[in-house]
């Protein structure tokens, strides 16, 4: 007799976020863009289905979920950032509605008047808030969809004829960027195969398919070839608040090499990769996610595996001084400007939420 366990997940309310988490986990191989869209959908469903009356309540709901995500996926940034952004949206909507209602200006306060912070307790129930938020989110999603194009469209500004571009591993954004550039100009691409060898090869292959002259090199050759490179263009996992990057392992040395030959080092990033976190390289926890040793030492290496410790870090930290330009859908920015973008994206007090 097959006994099916039919238990209700007792914490119904947070089930949705569990689903989101498991999806993110389940589909590690899919790029951050999918995560982003997925999160927005999640957010929509949250707003439309969950029980909430005031903006405050809604914000609490969101915050609660952010907590859960950040605890169960310590290395996830994209979905968190989007939720964080949504908090700001909620605030703004609330204000603007109130403004219409009362006509008085509640512009975000200056820091010199600290205690006027949070004059609004967001406790009023505003019927049309929900609708407007949903609109906002759809808008946001559309913007996200176009963002990839926007970035790609800037390509021709950055790549010129007969230049040689070096990239590392595979990033969808970079791929589209280069391909769109190839439409206008002819140039050579060097692809370093990166820690995840397969990805590097795929990248090289795709570029070649798009009829771009592509050369695949092992990572060790980066320094040797750097003098012949005009630009390094890479994708990144996260853009830190201080303008530093958290990117695929191996990029740190590439950045150093680029700096050594003073080759511009550009990172392509969507807005949702901007994270209001300041951590120095000495902060272990945020960077030292370790992957499977198999990428370094095959499992069939025999008895020496019993003795050797193998580390295969997933991320590298690239300090801002090594980064020349961070290109978003809104154009290029110097790393030093990141904090500004952050203030546009999020509200101070949500930073460490």
């Amino acid at each position, binding site marked *: 007799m097959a006994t099916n366990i039919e238990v209700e997940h007792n914490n119904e309310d947070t089930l949705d976020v569990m689903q989101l988490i498991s999806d993110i986990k389940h589909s590690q191989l899919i790029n951050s863009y999918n995560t982003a869209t997925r999160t927005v959908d999640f957010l929509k469903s949250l707003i439309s289905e969950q029980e909430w009356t005031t903006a405050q309540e809604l914000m609490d709901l969101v915050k609660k979920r952010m907590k859960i995500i950040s605890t169960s996926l310590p290395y996830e940034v994209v979905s968190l950032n989007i939720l964080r952004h949504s908090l700001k949206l909620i605030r703004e909507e609330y204000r603007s509605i109130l403004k219409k209602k009362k006509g008085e200006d509640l512009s975000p306060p200056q820091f010199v008047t600290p205690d006027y912070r949070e004059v609004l307790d967001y406790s009023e129930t505003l019927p049309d808030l929900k609708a407007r938020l949903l609109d906002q989110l759809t808008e946001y999603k559309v913007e996200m969809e176009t963002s990839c194009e926007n970035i790609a469209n800037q390509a021709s500004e950055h790549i010129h004829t007969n230049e040689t571009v070096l990239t590392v591993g595979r990033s969808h954004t970079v791929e589209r960027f280069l391909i769109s550039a190839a439409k206008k100009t002819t140039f050579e691409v060097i692809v370093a195969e990166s820690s995840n*060898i397969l990805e590097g090869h795929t990248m090289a292959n795709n570029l070649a398919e798009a009829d771009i002259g592509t050369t695949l090199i092992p*990572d060790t050759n980066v320094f040797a*070839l750097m003098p012949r490179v005009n630009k390094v263009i890479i994708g990144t996992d996260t853009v830190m608040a201080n303008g530093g990057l958290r990117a695929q392992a191996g990029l*740190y040395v590439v950045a*150093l090499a680029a700096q050594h030959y003073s080759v511009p080092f550009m990172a392509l990033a969507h807005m949702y990769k901007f994270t209001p976190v300041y951590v120095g390289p000495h902060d272990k926890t945020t960077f030292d996610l370790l992957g499977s040793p198999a990428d370094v030492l095959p499992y069939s290496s025999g008895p*020496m595996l019993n003795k050797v410790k*193998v580390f295969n870090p997933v991320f590298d930290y690239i300090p801002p001084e090594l980064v020349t330009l961070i290109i978003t859908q809104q154009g290029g920015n110097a790393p030093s400007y990141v904090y500004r973008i952050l203030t546009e994206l999020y509200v101070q007090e949500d930073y460490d939420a």
Partner: protein
Amino acid sequence: MDKKKQSKEEKVGADGLTKKERRALKVQARQTDDNKAEQKNIRQHSVPKNGEKSEINQNMAEKGSENVTENGVIVEEVKVPLDKPESGLSMKEKRKLEWEKKLASVKNENNIETKCDQQLSKSEQKAKRREIQEAQRLAKKNTVTKNTEELNSKISPENKKIDSAATKSFPAKHTCSKRFDGSILSPLQMPFRDYKPVELYDSVCLPNIHPAFIELGVQYSSKTILGSNARCISLLCALSRLVKDLRTPPEQEFSRYLELVLQKSTSYLQKCRPMSVSMTNALKLFKSQLTQIDSNIPDEDIKKKLLDFIDTFIHDEILTAGKAISLKVLEKISNGDIILIYGCSSLIKRILIEAFESKKQFKVIVVDNRPLTEGVEMLRRLTKAGIDCTCVSINGLRYVMASVTKIVLGAHSLLTNGYVMSRAGTSLIALAAKAFNRPVLVCCETYKFSERVQADSLVYNEIGDPDILLKDDTLNNPSPMKSRSKKRRRKFLNLLYDVTPAFLITAVVTELAILPCTSVPVVLRVKPIEI
């Protein structure tokens, strides 16, 4: 490994890179001391090796239909020396051997059938290594020339087989060199020698090249012998064999004739794989030696002179130099150090092991490098010696660099402008070390110093076999780069060396002294390579 062999290895000292090559080295080592029996037994191992290579090639050429039988043959071949003296080997060992040989041959098939190139699978390598150990152990025992004689006879046909096979496999090989017919050079104008393993097979049938050199050539181009020390030593061994066997034709002066032969042989080696600086330097010295000898003394004496010149060279320039260097580095290693090394350098290995034996407490971080993955071999040796090791790929540098206290690197050659030419990737290590301001020591015997001046890695370099990049046994799925379409736009590049700027390096450790890179020219003046 029993004491005896250990010492043997020490005698050879700097044994180079891959396991296969170590075997080759042992082979050479034996050849230096003129124990006839041992010479024979060396031939014996070189045989199955080449034999099975021939297999693979043949297979590339034709269908894999008759592997099974062929393997049968090979296994026979291998067994021959082992079964000889009933008294010598215990039943058990023999059983074990047979078992392993079965496996080996079996593996062999597997390799063929899964078309993976000469890369031998672990278990096979073990089997083979074991084989040789046994064989040598036994070789010590049977000093009876009689049976070695007959062994010899057994081998000769085998040799023929190689050649034929080699020539046969010509087409198979050709495809790989097709991949970049210089097209890579177009975008980034780089004056590279092209990588052509093809030529090696043309020249196998060249009459007046000593078999030792032909063997050597094959080993070089197949990267069986890797690492400048190893290559140099093996060259010298081959040289000594040449000198020994050389018969001056009537009304010809020995030294003249030798020079002539040498000329041919070296040009052949050059074709197989560009010579390393160490080799060229060694040859220069040898030639100058040759010219100095007055031609009136009988050939035997000349030979004798030359032979002990070679021996002294190996001994002084490489082994003792290594010793001196390791002593110097030893001073610099302090307890609790975490030492980062890159790839696999015989010298570094020696230094670390000696440091370990002198009871220094330190950890080692080995940085492995695709596609050659020499680091793995280094790990194997260090762990075997009992040293506490950690392994990262070159991508993991940042992760470990913070905890590292010293970086110790080997070198292919030291250029006159103080730049260091070494395995590709070395400069990245130095760069990272600089960023974390950790001291970088480069260890290099002075005989590797070069007259050349070079500011970047591209003006003079060597292209490795691009196919290794596609070696996908580490990948989850086969690489898409294998697919046929759009070949034109797709190129591979695999430089073997790069040049590290002097200012990234704290010091160079030579047998003379620990000095800054910039004082290389001084050393060259003190101790000129050309005499």
